[in-house]
């Protein structure tokens, strides 16, 4: 493969720029709908564009398949890749990595702390049922998950994390009245620092109103926000545990 700097999509000839796309317009099937689809394709940069298929979906919608050449050229030097701080791993690789680095199961303790009774978040991450098509952490063979459920007090959480020898503590906070989520989480991280110092487990907070940049303020290692999947959390755990091993506190 030659090291080209400027590229266009490849249909069957270099530089032909051919792409295919499909979409639905809220327009009844007919010539007017096809015209609208062509116009959209042109605005998307497809020139010339061909509506190769259209069919009605009910009386009010039309579905299209469109082929065409896009005029855009990509300069590979302009490509910016955001380096994720950790790779997303499938469950099998998470298991292998934990097995290799820990030689035992990684213990995760999860809870909703304070008066918060919304276990939706923590359950979506921990329950085997999972979230967004991904199985929860319970599914991972090399993770031992202890889900303490809702309304767990901070002292109880610290105590339980110690008896379970937790490697990581996951705390979920949904209720945000009077900044309860922030205050609760700060109380939690302070309690762990006081009780266990540098030997504290990894502290992870999650909830729809958290901003990932708040981790230092909250005194936790990582904050996960809305839409986080179990796989992301599991991959992070592998990453964070390996970092800890490299730099013993």
């Amino acid at each position, binding site marked *: 493969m030659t090291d080209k700097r400027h590229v266009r999509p490849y249909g069957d000839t270099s530089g032909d720029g051919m792409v295919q796309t*499909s*979409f*639905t317009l809220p327009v009844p099937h007919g010539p007017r709908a096809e015209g609208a689809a062509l116009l959209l394709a042109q605005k998307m940069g497809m020139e010339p564009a061909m509506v190769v298929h259209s069919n009605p*979906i*009910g009386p009010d*919608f039309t*579905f299209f398949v469109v082929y065409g050449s896009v005029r855009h050229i990509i300069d590979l030097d302009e490509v910016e890749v955001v380096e994720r701080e950790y790779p997303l791993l499938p469950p099998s690789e998470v298991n292998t990595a934990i097995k290799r680095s820990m030689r035992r199961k990684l213990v995760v303790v999860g809870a909703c702390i304070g008066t918060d*009774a*919304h*276990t*939706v978040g923590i*359950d*979506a991450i921990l*329950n*085997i*049922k999972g*979230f*967004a*098509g991904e*199985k929860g952490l*319970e*599914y991972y*063979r090399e993770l031992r998950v202890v*889900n303490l*459920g809702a309304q767990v007090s901070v002292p109880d959480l610290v105590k339980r994390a110690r008896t379970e020898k937790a490697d990581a503590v996951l705390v979920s906070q949904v209720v945000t009245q009077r900044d309860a989520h922030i205050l609760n989480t700060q109380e939690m991280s302070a309690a762990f620092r006081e009780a266990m110092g540098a030997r504290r487990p990894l502290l992870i907070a999650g909830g729809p109103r958290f901003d990932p940049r708040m981790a230092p303020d909250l005194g936790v290692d990582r904050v996960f926000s809305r839409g986080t999947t179990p796989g992301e959390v599991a991959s992070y755990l592998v990453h964070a545990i390996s970092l800890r091993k490299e730099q013993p506190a």
Partner: protein
Amino acid sequence: MPLRNRAPLLDLDPAVVDTARHLAAKAAAPVVEIARSHTTVSVERATLRLAGITGADSTHRAGDVPWVNRVVDTVAEHCGLQDGVCGPVFHALAEHNLGSLTELAEATAAGQVTYRVPTGRDATRAAKAARTAVGKGLRLVDRNRAQRDKMIARLGDPPRRPWIYLIVATGDIDEDVVQAANAARAGADIIAVIRSTGQSLLDYVPEGATHHGFAGTYATQENFRIMRAAMDEVSKEVGRYVRVTNYASGLCMPEIAVLAGMQRLDMMLNDSMYGILFRDINPIRTFVDQRFSRQVHARAGIIINTGEDNYLTTADAVDAAHTVTVSQLLNEHFAHEAGLPDELLGLGHAFEINPKVPESFRLELAHALLARELFPDAPLKWMPPTKHMTGDVFNGYLLDGFFNLAGALTGQSILLVGMMTEAVVTPFLSDRDLALANVRYVLDAAGGLVEDFRPAPDGLIVKRAHQVLGEAVDLLARIVDDGLLNAIAEGTFGLMKRPPDQGKGAAGVVARSDDYVNPAVDLLDEGVAR
């Protein structure tokens, strides 16, 4: 329902099949005994819902608390639930001379009611009043069943098998109605509304029409009513009875079963072990709630759908194939025991073998055919690939085509329509349309192929089916030896270890006393309404 119009193809040994059923019954027996000797907060709440309590306390600081939760929690606090909630509640109703259970609930919330277990003539009177009130609720369920039969007689069932089952899940019941109506017009026979993430772990049923769910729409009585009413309209328009499905699972399974019966839903997801294994709900709680909810479904003529597909998404679909058979046999036994006949038994299974496995399609046919022949009269629910849908929508569309073909070829009864955008986005309008076109093509082109399909007697399909049945019998024998509760505690199913004294909702389980009174249980057992 002419499901039996085919000769058996697998030549299963009737003695082995009998052994499997016998072992399933033996494994289930101790659990049935536990279910009969315990009650739960949710069973008691379901009973009061049948007796007519509705509405929620909207002044509570924690948000709307259903009145039924208020009452049952207070009874539990004052005198315990071991004798059932009906005695204390109907005694208090008479004592305070209140007109309705809702008034009693308001008085309860105001702290004006002290509950106690009535004795002597008070007890007799309370039991009689409770039986009358609950009987009224059951008669509503009976009327709905008759109404469904009438509408089916008038409008007709779907023209062919399998019935086409489509999911909507917008979070907003009003949007669900729009999507459901479009889906029904495009050929869907059954509309399922997926619930909001996490509802199964709520120990109360939310109230009213809801518009903000997480990846699904809350199951509420009002949402049930809205969807059923909308589908009644669409049924008339399309000239066939469109069925509506929801979920009687999680901590409120008995109550949701009652609400489904009251609002004439037609099918309910209802698995004997799903909540235990995949939601970490206390095993005893689940088995007690299960039995009551299945009795209600039997009464309401609701087809249950069991959740065997879940075993295959968490474990390998080839290695774990026999766990599906075991679960189907257990689900069948628990259902029969609770009064559900075969024609209401939508046992589940799924097309989840890794497509990269050689002969994967033949293995799927073997598993699907095994279920078909083990349960010839049950409306089996055939569920599409999800685990191996990668985001490559083109490949996904092909895989769904094979799934549809397997369903047609093995005579499945209910076909859950697979989406090529599974694991990518919530389906676009066009995804549903394409998915239905895929189903239509396969059924039109190959629907009759079932007639010509005769797997070779010593071929891979037949051998594989025999092997899976053999493994299922072995596993059932181990479960009988261990005890079902121990097997669950040790992680036999779906790899999850669930001890009987742990899990969510354990605090809501109460052993029945010798004086336990529950007219709903009595009326359901007796099959009468007065």
